[in-house]
């Protein structure tokens, strides 16, 4: 797999999101440097998923700006955001259950392919599909899904589904990858494997990655930088070491110095 | 896999079987089309295409039953052209698609169509009937269907009935020049046809028509009647379903409107006399008809009513439906009788024009079918509601054709 674009920078500037009068995000600002893996953590209800939905255009932003490589994406519809090279996965798996794994992955090529309804009806665009299918098979192999390509998604194991979502996001050939709890519900070995995949994808494809995760082991092992949210506000933002030592983080959520891979901490945070 | 192969083999086998068995028959059938369909040495078969399961199933059954009463009489009297009449009946459920299928299926078996019920059905079939040179009796009084020699519209058409009705009201002094008349009518052939008549009559009589179009499914006509009330109408003409006509009468009475209500031929059903609308109907409602009523005090009506009761027990829902279907069957026999030596479809069409003075004394005024573009009669009769007579309605006078009705030009020029 080769990289085609440079990794972008993501700047979140003073973003607020309102839900029927409630401020779900309140002036959130942070910057994700090009090519880094950036984690967003915080207790349940802190606004992590809200943030990702705002980034990908699903939620309307009440104020503030979101910039990808200096270009504003605030207020764009999700499919427009995708065109700026931003792909994402969902916390609760969103796939077509009766479709095969391959077809689910091929949806990821939607924006990269052109053949519309009329052309497809007339049987045009098959060549295009063949070319893209080859690339999709490569990505599937990278994600370890080669063996289940022909199986309906509903029949896949949970771990495979999580990887399917991840691989599908890669199929969009993104520059900025957004992952919502990519390892939630996986066992330790599976989590480690997916964490390795995320790192490898970043390296091979030159991506910028933003992810939300409760598994502190994974966060600490792959994140270059961490933003901590609570009550819709940024508590702190910095390197894993910085966050681990931040007094507010410690006092507010941890009560004790954070250790990498500390089960208690993970439990407390999730 | 195995199954598919078996399936494939079966299909091939079926195809070859069809090839062997079927080939000859259809080609043969095509070759021997010289004899007129539906005619043998002993019988003449006529088609009846009715709604027996749809919204007008009741009407359809009534028509069928009445046709059978007439066929029985005709056959008992020796039949037509030394042959017995036989009916081939198919149900279309008021669905044009079913009607076309039923037509296709029965068409090779019958000489012509004694009776077809339902506007959408006639609409779907009329081009086919014309293409095959057939003669079809219709259960409708729409003057828009005149002008086609293949179709029989028996009696005064809706527009002419309405003209006669308004004329009658004026002559009785219920209406005078300058008055407004409400006209509640169904969308579709009955309503529009009747509206054409009421507008014509209004123009001549100096009346003003206040129209209210309704849908066949409308159940509550309060708003329509109230609108007429505020337009201060002096009479209401109704062309609707029987239930809607009853609703109009009841609402009008409830709203304190003491005006005569003149209903079109298809606005009455016997069972309405058991409903809460009965008093209002009895007091204000009269009905028009180009045909006699079973409740009439004539020998023919009493005879038919007795034959009906004999066969089916209770009074029919639609008295006019019985008379119409009975008369239509007698008429068709009359037409057949004029072409005994040429019992073909074209022969039948020719014989139709030869019927110029068909009448059933006491049931049907004289009918003239020589010009397909003209209504066979311009006479109508006003009927009143009476619980005590057979099927609930009785004539309030003789058949008459007003001068206006004679003057009126039906829209069948096109």
């Amino acid at each position: 797999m080769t990289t085609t674009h440079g990794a972008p920078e993501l700047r979140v500037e003073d973003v607020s999101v309102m839900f029927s009068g409630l401020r779900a995000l309140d002036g959130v600002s942070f910057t994700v440097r090009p090519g880094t893996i950036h984690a967003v953590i915080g207790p349940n209800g802190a606004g992590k998923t809200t943030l990702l939905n705002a980034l990908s255009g699903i939620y309307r932003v009440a104020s503030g700006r979101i910039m990808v490589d200096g270009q504003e994406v605030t207020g764009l519809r999700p499919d427009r955001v995708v065109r700026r090279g931003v792909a994402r996965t969902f916390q609760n798996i969103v796939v077509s259950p009766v479709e095969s794994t391959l077809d689910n992955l091929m949806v990821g090529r939607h924006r990269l392919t052109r053949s519309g309804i009329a052309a497809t009806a007339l049987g045009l665009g098959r060549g295009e599909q063949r070319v893209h299918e080859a690339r999709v098979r490569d990505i599937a192999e990278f994600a370890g899904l080669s063996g289940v390509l022909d199986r309906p998604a509903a029949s896949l194991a949970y771990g495979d589904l999580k990887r399917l979502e991840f691989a599908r996001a890669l199929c969009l050939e993104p520059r900025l990858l957004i992952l919502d709890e990519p390892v939630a519900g996986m066992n330790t070995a599976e989590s480690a494997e997916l964490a390795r995949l995320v790192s490898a994808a970043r390296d091979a494809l030159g991506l910028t990655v933003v992810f939300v995760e409760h598994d502190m082991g994974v966060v600490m092992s792959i994140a270059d930088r961490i933003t901590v949210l609570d009550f819709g506000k940024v508590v702190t933002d910095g390197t894993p070491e910085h966050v681990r030592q931040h007094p507010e983080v410690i006092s507010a959520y941890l009560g004790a110095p954070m250790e990498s891979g500390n089960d208690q901490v993970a439990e407390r945070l999730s | 896999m195995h199954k598919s192969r078996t399936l494939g083999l079966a299909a091939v086998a079926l195809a070859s079987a069809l090839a062997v068995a079927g080939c000859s028959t259809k080609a043969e059938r095509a070759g021997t089309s010289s004899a007129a369909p539906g005619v043998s040495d002993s019988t003449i078969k006529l088609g009846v295409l009715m709604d027996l399961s749809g919204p007008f199933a009741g009407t359809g059954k009534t028509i069928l039953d009445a046709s059978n009463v007439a066929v029985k009489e005709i056959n008992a009297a020796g039949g037509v052209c030394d042959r017995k009449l036989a009916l081939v009946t198919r149900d279309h459920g008021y669905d044009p698609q079913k009607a076309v299928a039923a037509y296709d299926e029965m068409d090779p078996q019958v000489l012509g169509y004694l009776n077809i019920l339902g506007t959408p059905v006639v609409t779907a079939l009329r081009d086919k009937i014309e293409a095959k040179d057939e003669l079809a009796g219709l259960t409708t009084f729409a003057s828009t269907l005149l002008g086609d020699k293949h179709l029989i519209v028996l009696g005064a058409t809706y527009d002419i009935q309405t003209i006669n009705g308004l004329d009658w009201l004026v002559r009785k002094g219920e209406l005078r020049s300058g008055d407004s008349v409400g006209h509640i009518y169904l969308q579709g052939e009955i309503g529009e046809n009747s509206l054409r008549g009421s507008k014509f009559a209004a123009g001549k009589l100096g009346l003003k028509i206040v129209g209210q179009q309704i849908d066949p499914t409308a159940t509550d006509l309060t708003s329509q009647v109230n609108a007429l009330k505020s337009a201060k109408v002096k009479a209401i003409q109704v062309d609707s379903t029987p239930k809607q006509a009853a609703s109009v009468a009841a609402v009008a009475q409830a709203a304190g409107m003491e005006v005569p209500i003149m209903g079109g031929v298809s606005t009455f059903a016997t069972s309405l006399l058991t409903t809460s609308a009965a008093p209002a109907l009895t007091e204000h409602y009269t009905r028009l008809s180009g045909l006699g009523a079973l409740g009439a005090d004539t020998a023919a009506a009493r005879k038919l009513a007795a034959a009906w009761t004999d066969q089916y027990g209770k009074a029919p829902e639609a008295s006019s439906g019985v008379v119409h279907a009975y008369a239509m069957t007698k008429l068709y026999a009359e037409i057949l009788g004029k072409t005994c030596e040429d019992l073909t479809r074209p022969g039948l069409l020719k014989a139709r024009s030869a019927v110029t003075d068909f009448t059933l004394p006491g049931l049907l005024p004289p009918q003239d079918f020589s010009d397909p573009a003209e209504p066979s009669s311009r006479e109508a009769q006003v009927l009143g509601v009476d619980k005590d007579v057979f099927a609930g309605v009785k004539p309030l006078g003789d058949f008459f054709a007003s001068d206006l009705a004679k003057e009126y030009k039906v829209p069948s020029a096109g």
Partner: protein
Amino acid sequence: MTRGVEILLSGLSLGLLYALIALGFVIVFKATRTVNFAHASFVLFGVWVVAQTSPHIGFAAAVALGLVAAGTLGLAVERLLLSRVDGRKHDALAILTIGVNVVLTAELSWRIGERVLPLGAPWDGHVVHFGSVVLPLSVIITIITVPLLIAGLAACLRHTGWGLAMRASIEDREGAALAGVRLKRVSAGAWVTAGVLAVAAGIGLASFPSPGVAVSTGTAAIKALPAAIIGGLDSLGGAIVGGLVIGIAEVTVAEYQASLSFLGRGLGDVVAYVIMICILLWRPSGLFGAKEVSRA
């Protein structure tokens, strides 16, 4: 002036009957996320029972029997058929109700035929005069009874265990299930209620000045469908507003049909749908329907 009052009152009475039917749609939709296309045959079935029995046992007893019968029918449809389908497949459930409607309508049309069955209500044929305003007694009774019925329903939802369970399960299905709410009972209760409301509305529709029960009595339910949509399929208050809007619009259009003739004749049936589409363009979930918060 007199005319205006009459239009308003008859529109109100018709609208309230539509509202009752619309409430039946809404309550089923709230509980099962399904539109009950069999509602028309529920209406017809209930009034048919009333009309069949009232000559023998009297009107009041017949109404009670009709209510019980339609409630039972609702329960039977829910218990015997709908509960066998995966409740998340809303479209499948809707189709199932179409199937139920086909069977029930076939049976009832076959039995009723073209007859008009008198309802035998004591207010049949009676009119009331208020000064120059003349109205059928049934209109007055509708205007008084229906709001009481609706208030009763609202009280039920607010204060009974079933009502609470119902409301909880609408807020959060899984949460309610976890909290011990028996979704089965909620859904069954909704179907019974829908059946009862259907008959109540049907009695109004078949009452004087309408001559009685005929096959077309059930079609009013199709007219109430836009009413339910206008208000928002999951809003009880919306159903009432929607019903009144449709009822008054219908009466008004009929009143001014002559001056609206440039739009073609017979506008009354279209007007409800035109209003509905306009409102949906403005608010895709109806006036008071819950906006779906987009969350994957």
